[in-house]
């Protein structure tokens, strides 16, 4: 199959690659751009392990074709890290034991990041609903929810302090 010239902005950097239009975004990221943070768990949009941010929205990159992302701005877990690697969400997941095997975690944190942009002050119910597209087999979600609620209050507190 002939290849297309794909130009993207990934984690703030302009990148170019050749790929087939039918290639899935998750494969472009993992195989061509070596961003192995997002994972593949189902290939049917159910599990959310492949969640990335695309043009300001959470998408499941296992069901997005390369042909659909020409010129898009993509953020993966690798782009969410602070200068020392750990951001507020990452630290909160660690502090609240919001992960075990770690396989869902990049998608989970990437989705949580977007959720807190959409709703900076969510209730527990809103977190549970807003995260329902991301499956975890290890934690039972209770500590994930706790971690996100804690991260929200931390982020809000630092926003207030800045104002």
């Amino acid at each position, binding site marked *: 199959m002939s290849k297309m010239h794909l130009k993207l902005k990934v984690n703030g950097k302009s990148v170019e690659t050749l790929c087939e239009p039918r290639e899935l975004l998750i494969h472009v990221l993992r*195989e061509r751009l070596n961003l192995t943070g997002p994972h593949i768990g189902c290939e*049917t949009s159910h599990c959310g392990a492949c969640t990335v941010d695309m043009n300001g929205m959470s998408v499941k990159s296992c069901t997005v074709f390369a042909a659909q992302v020409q010129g898009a701005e993509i953020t993966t877990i690798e782009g969410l890290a602070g200068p020392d690697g750990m951001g507020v969400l990452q630290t909160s997941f660690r502090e609240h034991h919001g992960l075990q095997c770690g396989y869902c975690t990049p998608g989970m944190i990437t989705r949580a990041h977007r959720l807190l942009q959409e709703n900076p002050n969510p209730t527990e119910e809103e977190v*549970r609903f807003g995260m329902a597209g*991301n499956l975890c087999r290890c934690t*039972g979600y209770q500590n994930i929810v706790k971690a996100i609620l804690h991260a929200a209050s931390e982020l809000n507190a630092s926003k207030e302090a800045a104002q």
Partner: protein
Amino acid sequence: MNDLSHDQRVAGLKGLGSSRKRVEDARFTQGKGNYVDDIKMPDMLFGDFVRSQYAHARIRSVDTSKAVALPGVIAVLQAADLAPLGLHWMPTLAGDKQMVLADGKVLFQGQEIAFVIAEDRYICADAIELIEVEYEELPVVVDPFKALQPGAPVLREDLAGQTKGAHGERIHHNHIFRWEVGDKEGTEAVVAGADVVAEEMVYYHRTHPCPLETCGCVASMDKINGKLTLWGTFQAPHVVRTVASLLSGIPESSIRVVSPDIGGGFGNKVGVYPGYVCAIVASIVTGRPVKWIEDRMDNLMATAFARDYWMQGKIAATAEGKITGLWCHVTADHGAFDACADPTKFPAGFFSICTGSYDIPVAYVGVDGVYTNKAPGGVAYRCSFRVTEAAYFIERMIEVLAIKLGMDSAELRRINFIRKEQFPYQSALGWEYDSGDYHTAWDKALNAVGYDALRAEQAQRVADFKAGKTRSLMGIGLSFFTEIVGAGPVKNCDILGMGMFDSCEIRIHPTGSALARLGTISQGQGHATTFAQILATETGIPADQITIEEGDTDTAPYGLGTYGSRSTPVAGAATAMAGRKIRAKAQMIAAYLLEVHDNDLEWDVDRFVVKGVPERFKTMKEIAYAAYNQAIPGLEPGLEAVSYYDPPNMTYPFGAYICVMDIDADTGVADIRSFYALDDCGTRINPMIIEGQVHGGATEAFAIAMGQEIAYDEMGNCMTGTLMDFFLPTAWETPHYTTDFTETPSPHHPIGAKGVGESPNVGGVPAFSNAVHDAFRPFGLTQSHMPHDHWRIWRIANQLGLHG
């Protein structure tokens, strides 16, 4: 550090009992984990399977010509290509053999027929579409009872005429084994003469561990030095190395098996799968690394399922409710090949723990294993070898008996519990329970949930329902479970002849930090965090200065891996014992340095102190430096230790779980109001991780009890091959958990720990299921099979006439 108080020094270690944050999390939260599909090597090829569309068919022909002609396709392997190497069949962990690639016929939908090797996964997928398989359909058997009928189709033609299997006599061409434990005649006599007998068929349906990461591997044969390296999703990397060596003839010294980060296992990644064998062969044939990664449908349809036990039970009791005997017969559906991962002597695993937490004087268990046209497996899905089936069986039978007696089932449990003073307790089916205090745990649990008030509320709800004031029912699900985990001992437990010990090697570095390597492998349990805690307490080296490594057979000591909650009971014990060897040598060094006799020293957190002279001491850090840099007469330099630990017995964690749910009789929707989990796993190493394990295991139990299943239609089509059909709960429907504990140490484990990872699955399933049953008990329900999805709950209500 020397100015710190005793308590400050203890806290600084982050040893046993500390809710230490996990060292694994920095890499996982930043997307820097290293899972098998993240491995990328120069020239790496990708392999994938052509799979059977039919559950039972003869393969007439496989036309690969169009596929082979596709640019980028390297080769297509079939059984005939593997036969000269003797690799077209492989041994299963249960002593059966399994086709690697279809050898003349297929026995389940999704079975591997051909292995396509291509430059990348897209070309591979295209090639698979181009391969034409001509089938001749054969009659399909999906019901294990029908499989045993006289005229049933012969599934395993390779076993024709064989009346003996790996586990004794075969009584039918689709029969695998019969396994019997206990006193059959004695039990039947008690049942025949009992005041009360409750009899029920309890079905624990087929399901699947479904870790979020599927199975896969990368095989790389280096033709220059003859070394095979295999990275993969292996819960038991050393066992994989041994099996790979036995199959291929390559010496174990020339095989390196590496388990990188594993994205959940839950039993799914214990077995050896055709993909591993084919990737190895493909790498040997092509001289290039070959990756094989399952997709989700492959995972659910072809790699190891769990459960599928039909359990016929009879429980006998006096009129007052004292249990006098338990009889059980299981028809175990193993699918097309017996690919359980049980210890050799236990073809039904530790199912004979089914007398549960109760003092039952006589019991009998018989299990018949049966072949059907379903995927092979029978692994322990977050449980220790069929313990979940056993716990579900006894906890349902207790409820059924309570109905028959007209008793409250909490009280029925209480009067039958093994009493504290009876431990170590010899069960009627041959197990020696190490320790327990069931009454204390039960009372704590019932008080915590306000049991009496819940029953009163339920009675009012039933009255209101009958009066037409509500359409909601209320169920209180009780469960008290005893697990049996931590296999060995070696004298009882082996897999394919490999004894089930485990191991730890420790090196203390000259500046007082340490490296420890174990024969186990974490799949999310946090071994790098908790094993360092055990060592910190044993050696006085802060956990933050101890690196834990697992999963690389070139560096880790031989071990049997991580499943059956065996890591803490066995490798955790090895870790403690190796730490004690370090301390013994350290004591001699300290005695030399302090110019006293060994016996004049005592251990104090992180140092040896001269008895009665607290200002005279040597810290482990000082001792480590001296071990390497000071010539000590009669002592070798260095500070290292190895322990291979063969446990004297298994450990018996237990717990009390109580689920309260509200059920809408008209929609069948169950709303979990509360879930209380009390666990006693002996000594608690890291309470934060224990709580996390309980949340996760209970959520798996919730899924299994309330909707998750691997279902087949009559043609053997798997109906649940995607996450659309196979229920994995989201954050939205998953309940909130309250955790609690009692602490009864194991008397034979070096630190008293028992293991916890699987308890919530084992104890959780009966709690959820009993809650559903309990809601309908006032309307005459005694037994209804799981999973209790909305439709099945609605059907219960409908069949009981609750829809008017």
